[in-house]
């Protein structure tokens, strides 16, 4: 009898990459539902556009690179990038902005570096930052007022607005700044935090609930062993520490840590973006440093930078430091302590 000769180990117990990516998609689902509840179907349409562009461009590049299409398309990583992008973009982002962001993420940030596993930068954040800089008005002004404040938009109107790349009629009555940009502009008008928080926008709680469901999804990922606690905890600690310090320095000029942790992309960043293993530091100690850096930088950009949110920039900046962090955080191997 002849037997197959393969190297050890002969058994396996891992969660394959496609399953990891599927878990990420599942974890995003509740947050998307809450998002739709507050902001309408924009995110769904954006997701469809982003996913289509992501899969098409990934397939094209894989063909050009002569790679196994079904193996790599089947890892769902392109879809994850698409969903993270759609989640970051305003609900009424014109279709071509979404498409450009996705194309850049998949082709430039991912495949030009060698594809999954080789990218230095988080693809979704690279795509997002590109359009944030290239289309500043669309990215700042196309936020709808959440349910409970504005009238909201139907599926048809949303679709028209995205595909025609023009805001619907009577846009002024529908639109609203995000809490983060509101706070930023109001603070620059010398308003105090107590004045700002009495505004209706601040009391709706849309972003609070979105962040909470995102965090819930993150806990699911932790439970499933897809991510480990180090990065999320460090990001939350980074934002929380700085926010707490400055909050106590001047309650009127600095929003509370709770506000910081429950608006914008705080939880998305902590659980879904910073935890992208490919572009993150790799040792346990390295990941704590990396996460803390993202949290702290995000707070600094939010507070003193030109952009209302800073997660994307913080992630990209910390991506750049990963080789250095990895270099300085090699764990002490067994039996080498005295060396």
């Amino acid at each position: 009898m002849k037997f197959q000769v393969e190297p050890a180990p002969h058994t396996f117990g891992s969660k394959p990459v496609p399953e990891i990516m599927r878990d990420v998609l599942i974890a995003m689902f509740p947050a998307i539902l809450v998002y739709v509840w507050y902001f309408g179907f924009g995110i769904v349409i954006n997701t469809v556009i982003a996913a289509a562009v992501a899969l098409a461009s990934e397939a094209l590049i894989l063909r050009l690179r002569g790679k196994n299409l079904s193996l790599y398309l089947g890892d769902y990583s392109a879809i994850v990038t698409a969903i993270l992008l759609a989640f970051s973009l305003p609900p009424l982002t014109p279709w071509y902005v979404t498409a450009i962001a996705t194309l850049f993420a998949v082709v430039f940030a991912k495949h030009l570096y060698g594809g999954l596993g080789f990218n230095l930068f988080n693809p979704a954040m690279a795509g997002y930052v590109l359009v944030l800089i290239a289309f500043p008005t669309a990215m700042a002004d196309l936020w709808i007022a959440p349910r409970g404040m504005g009238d909201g938009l139907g599926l048809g109107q949303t679709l028209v607005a995205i595909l025609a790349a023009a805001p619907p009629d009577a846009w002024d009555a529908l639109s609203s700044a995000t809490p983060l940009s509101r706070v930023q502009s109001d603070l620059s008008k010398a308003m105090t935090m107590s004045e700002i928080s009495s505004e209706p926008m601040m009391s709706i709680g849309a972003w609070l609930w979105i962040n909470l469901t995102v965090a819930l999804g993150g806990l699911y990922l932790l439970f499933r062993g897809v991510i480990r606690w180090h990065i999320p905890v460090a990001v939350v600690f980074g934002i929380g520490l700085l926010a707490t310090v400055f909050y106590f320095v001047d309650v009127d000029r600095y929003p509370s840590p709770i506000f910081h942790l429950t608006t914008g992309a705080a939880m998305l960043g902590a659980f879904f973006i910073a935890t992208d293993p490919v572009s993150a530091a790799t040792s346990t100690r390295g990941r704590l440093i990396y996460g803390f850096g993202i949290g702290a930088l995000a707070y600094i950009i939010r507070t003193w930078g030109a952009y209302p949110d800073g997660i994307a920039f913080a992630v990209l900046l910390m991506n750049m430091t990963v080789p250095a962090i990895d270099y300085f955080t090699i764990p002490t191997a067994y039996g080498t302590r005295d060396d």
Partner: protein
Amino acid sequence: MDKRTAEEIPGQVDDELTPTKKPSGFYGGLRLPTDKHALAGQPLREAPLADEIVLPLSQHAGLPAIPSVRVGQAVLRGERIADPDGFISAAVHASTSGTVVAIEDRTVPHPSGLNAPCIVLRPDQEDRWCEPDPVIGAYHTEDPVRVRQRVRDAGIAGLGGAVFPTSTKLTARADVHMHTLILNGAECDPEISCDETLMHWRPNDIIAGARIILHVLQVNRCVIGIEEDKPQCEQALRTAVSEFDDDRFEVVRVPAIYPEGSERQLIQALSGHEVPSNGLPLDIGFVCVNVATAAAVKTAIIDGRALTERTVTVTGQGVREPANVVSRLGTPLSTLIEVCGGYKEDAERLVIGGAMMGFAVGHDNIPVVKACNSVLVMTAAESRPATDIRPCIRCGECARVCPSKLLPQQLYWYAGSHDHERLERFNIFDCIECGCCDYVCPSNIRLAQHFRYAKAEITVRDADRERAQLAKHRFENRDKRQTLDANERAEQLAEKKRQAAAALDIHKRRQVIDEVMERVKAKERASRNQDSTDTR
């Protein structure tokens, strides 16, 4: 571990080993699913005498043994047929009575699948033992060196799988204070239960053997490490210890985490101490011996019998009746499979050793050797697929489970680019090839295989470098010698001339010239006379 301990010099680590402290465990590792314990409780089977017994000369770590029999010679079971070659080597004994029919290369159990020298016996089917060696019943009054020699004569090597010659391991070193013998009863592989069977059925032999080893080492402390999922074995060993009424023994339960059976991990789990990176347990005063090895020592000293058989776990989804089989060394694997009801239809992979570290072999005409603790027959469904290998996503799960606290994801990267300097900086030689990283890898990457390859590559490179260095040295020496020679010769010549010149003053020279001239003239005259004679 606190700083104080780390700073102590090797061998002076405090002897206080967990009597009150709870075992501290070790870093990483895996809790692997297992159903082996049912197998351990079943009675042992015995492999029948095969038609041919093949005994490789290299069944142990170190140099192969040297045959001491000739072809055609009749041998008895237990008779020594090959002698150890040097300090790190072990003897080989006939595992049954019969005739030596060949000393030739045969397929041996090795990952390479290559052939190596073996002594081939044709059994006479009588299985007659040779005269047992004189029993050393009162070994504790005997010279430890003599007892150790008997262990060496019995051909015992570590039966846990590493097969390091036991007598070598039991040799004290002057610079180290040896304080603790560790009996390794961890047996962490999820399929292997041969040690468990032994602890279950023969606990007294294990303790008796350990007492002999304590005497050889002149050590007064033995800690038996046993995984928590073998409570019956733990009880059996405790009972045996109390029967011997020996207070030097301590049975310690450790968590069932693979690869606890690795001595480095077991020592850390039991004591909190780490064995130095390129050192041995002995460097910090520990000697670690497998329970089956201890039982073999007992057999050698108390019963006077050499090592001629071992227990092998035959298991896996691809074999009909999994069992622990007592088997003579040299018995082909096919005989073991027959004892266990044969293969199932979907048997696909034959593995010697466990599923984590064992190696697959292409066929079953391969002999059981001292290292062979398990034969695993796997089906396609349970064995790891050879396809669907994806790029590393740096998830770091491998680093989480690595008991050596390495970063396999980085090592993999550097192994791929043959970056030997970085591989060494990231301590690739501390990789124990346990396969934990492979097991959890979501991209199904053959990490351990990459590391084995990279290590071999570096070893070859180092050897090449050493050779090149040597050749360079030789060339330089030769060059120097030649230049020296040339100069020396020139100098000697000049010296000679000088001497000759100095010896001859002007008168002497003239005299010499005159003499020469005289000789020339005489010659001419002679030749002229000759000419005239000729013409006459």
